[in-house]
């Protein structure tokens, strides 16, 4: 698939002999994501490129592309300075439609949770309160998610597309093992899958807002996405909200609003 698309100009320069060639990772409606390098191979990066849209008037297209890249970069800058875990911006050329971001090692939270839940999570029975005790590493992850989303909202930013695919699990430098070693290798691998720092990615739809409503909708989108992606662990989502509720002063009122949003059964409810 990668060969179907011409590379963005920034990646067409003569690569140094030591560098790995850029590779296309995803092609979405918004644009393409490449893995490349910033300065040297020791600095892997994600290059986000918004190619020109042939259907749009060129002036309008240029204006929108530039504004969107700038908006996303500003959100990331604000998060970084506030200490919300997001990738840093290494370089950008908004007019040319690209932005180079820090490469986040590790796998998406979605994949980690699926490893934890087992190979075919959707067919197994739902996790209930009775076996919660065995779920401590997963619950800890849920709490870390809640804390990170709370930190994001505290800075006045709404992500706009929170899913477990838009969160990475950046491996810890040392693994924390909570369970006894006697559980064996398989259990250790399972546990490792849900360890790591939660890093939020893909702020292409992010906006600035401090309203309870917008924050609640952001949480609701995550809740729906979580339920459809990990139906078996749906009940554990309360741990996300619980941790979120402790992150800033107004968080509890956002959770009250969330109940409203759920009641309204927003049209988004069928999206999952």
């Amino acid at each position: 698939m990668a060969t179907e698309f011409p590379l963005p100009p920034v990646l067409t320069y003569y690569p140094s002999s030591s560098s790995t060639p850029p590779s296309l990772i995803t092609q979405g409606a918004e644009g393409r994501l490449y893995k490349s390098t910033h300065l040297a191979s020791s600095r892997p990066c994600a290059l986000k490129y918004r190619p020109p849209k042939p259907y749009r008037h060129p002036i309008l297209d240029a204006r929108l592309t530039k504004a969107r890249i700038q908006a996303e970069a500003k959100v990331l800058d604000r998060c970084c300075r506030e200490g919300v875990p997001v990738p840093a911006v290494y370089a950008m050329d908004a007019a040319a439609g690209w932005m180079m971001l820090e490469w986040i090692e590790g796998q998406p939270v979605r994949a980690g949770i699926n490893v934890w839940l087992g190979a075919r999570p959707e067919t197994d029975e739902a996790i209930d309160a009775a076996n919660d005790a065995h779920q401590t590493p997963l619950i800890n992850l849920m709490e870390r998610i809640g804390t990170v989303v709370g930190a994001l909202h505290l800075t006045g930013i709404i992500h706009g597309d929170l899913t477990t695919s838009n969160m990475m699990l950046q491996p810890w430098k040392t693994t924390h093992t909570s369970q006894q070693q006697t559980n064996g290798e398989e259990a250790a691998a399972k546990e490792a899958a849900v360890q790591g720092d939660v890093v939020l990615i893909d702020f292409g739809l992010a906006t600035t807002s401090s309203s309870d409503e917008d924050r609640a909708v952001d949480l609701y989108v995550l809740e729906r996405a979580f339920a459809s992606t990990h139906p078996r662990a749906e009940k554990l989502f309360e741990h996300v909200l619980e941790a979120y509720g402790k992150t800033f002063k107004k968080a509890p009122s956002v959770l009250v609003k969330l109940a409203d949003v759920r009641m309204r059964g927003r049209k988004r409810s069928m999206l999952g």
Partner: protein
Amino acid sequence: MALEKLTIDNTPSNQNIYLALFRDVDADTTQALQKQLLARNPAFEYAFIDASSIISRVHLLSAIYNALNAVATNTLQTPNVHSEIVLSLSPSNNIADAYRRWGFAAGKTTDLIVVKVVFHDNEQTEEQVWAHLKEHIPTGTVVDPITDEEIAKSTDWSKVRKYYKLNGVPALDRIKDDAEKKREMERLAVMGMALRGL
């Protein structure tokens, strides 16, 4: 020879980039250099950078990368790639401020980083560049190799914090470990440069 030839990923191949670091340069030298710059002597087309405003190689190379991209896309905001490197170190579009903060101050700057970009249509060799530099920067110690540790010896952290608006930034204040804090400052500085003027 203590001129380092840099390779930077994803930059056009039609140029050579050279780097040098001089420590403890005397006032006469920087004053003489400034005269040449004010006279716009084309033989003195270098990016002269005050090393005390530089954090690390990544910090410096990021500025060079951004300036080379401006050359490649015909979006230079200053006369040439060398002045653009100095501007690229700044998080704002104020060119005079950028020169004052990251360029050298005659008679004051002691540690001097020099970057030279030689495009291939220019015949200048590495030896010629180095000979010219040595001739006009006769004082001070030539640092070789130019490692992060060597650069850090010159860094004035209070200046860096001020220039990149890093005072009172929550992301830094929560970090206890000094080395980690410096890495984070580099990360935020590079980001400030990438978002210049936004």
